[in-house]
């Protein structure tokens, strides 16, 4: 089981009372070799009763593998300890913000069928900047920027798989500036830019889809 650091998840465990009398119990869900207590639940089980008990757990801040344990007491006396068969792997939490700013705008245009029709615009290249900010975990991000134009439903690649790999310290931003061309004058075009930010393992941690007028 894999969760990101700081995320909140619900663990559900079925407890059963094998005895002929009912008891009050208190169970602690612990994680890590130090048996750090993550959540506590108090419940009552009648004789022979089964009950699903939920534990709301905020995952540890430090990435790593965490064994999961339970301690159960009744009347203040420890009556059982249990180990889950599967560890939890806590992965880093990358918080990023992505902004997209187009430098050049169409001078005139109108919406046609949900698509911006640029009726007067520059014929030279357009310029845009993408700002990516690490708001979470230090590490190396792979930033992938892909841009696509759609013309009459047929996607044509303006540029694709532009990629930068950068190390972002927490709070640090990287600004990428690029230019793109408008291929056909006067046609209704839908410009879409896909910006992906990947962690060191290649897992996408942020993905933004911009639909912009030309």
């Amino acid at each position, binding site marked *: 089981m894999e969760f990101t650091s700081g995320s909140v998840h619900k663990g*559900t*465990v079925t407890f059963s009372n094998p005895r002929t*009398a*009912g008891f009050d119990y208190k169970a602690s869900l612990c994680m890590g070799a130090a048996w750090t207590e993550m959540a506590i639940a108090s419940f009552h089980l009648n004789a022979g009763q089964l009950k699903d008990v939920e534990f709301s757990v905020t995952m540890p801040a430090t990435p790593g593998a965490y064994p999961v344990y339970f301690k*159960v007491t009744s009347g203040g006396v420890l009556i059982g300890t249990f180990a889950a068969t599967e560890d939890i792997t806590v992965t880093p939490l990358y918080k990023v913000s992505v902004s997209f700013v187009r430098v050049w705008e169409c001078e005139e245009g109108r919406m046609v069928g949900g698509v911006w029709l640029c009726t007067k615009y520059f014929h030279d290249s357009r310029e845009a900047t993408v700002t990516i900010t690490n708001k979470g975990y230090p590490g190396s991000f792979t930033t992938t920027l892909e841009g696509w134009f759609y013309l009459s439903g047929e996607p044509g690649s303006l540029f694709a798989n532009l990629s930068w790999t950068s190390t972002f310290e927490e709070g640090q931003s990287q600004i990428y500036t690029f230019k793109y061309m408008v291929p056909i004058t006067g046609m209704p075009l839908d410009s879409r830019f896909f910006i992906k930010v990947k962690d060191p393992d290649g897992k996408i941690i942020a993905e933004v889809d911009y639909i912009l007028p030309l």
Partner: protein
Amino acid sequence: MKLDLEKAKGEDGHILVKSLEMEDPTFESATPHVATATFQNPKTAPFDFTAELYLGKTLGTKTATSGPKTFTVAAGGTKPVDFSVNMPTLAIPSDAYHVYLEVKQAGVVLITFVATEDVTVIVTPAINVTQITWA
């Protein structure tokens, strides 16, 4: 431990109980235990007796019993007799019971003793757990 007895009902002089020994007076529910009573025949002739050890809230209410045990005690002699009792199965965490020892001869109750100390029957809490599921 040794339990002291006193007469609950019946007539003295037919048989004596020199001692009644059992384990710790706190027992787990539904578990078997053995108490040993040592009887003494004060008479000048041997007699056959039937004795029954039982746990109950009141005289004659047999919540758990050894069942009748028949034995012979020689004239003036003593006889240890074991009584095996399965503790009551409790539906509550604990309960207390009087200990009675009833002695018969030829089918007639001679005397019933009661221990001066009750036994306590408990259910030790336990729990089972299945694998955790995460959401």
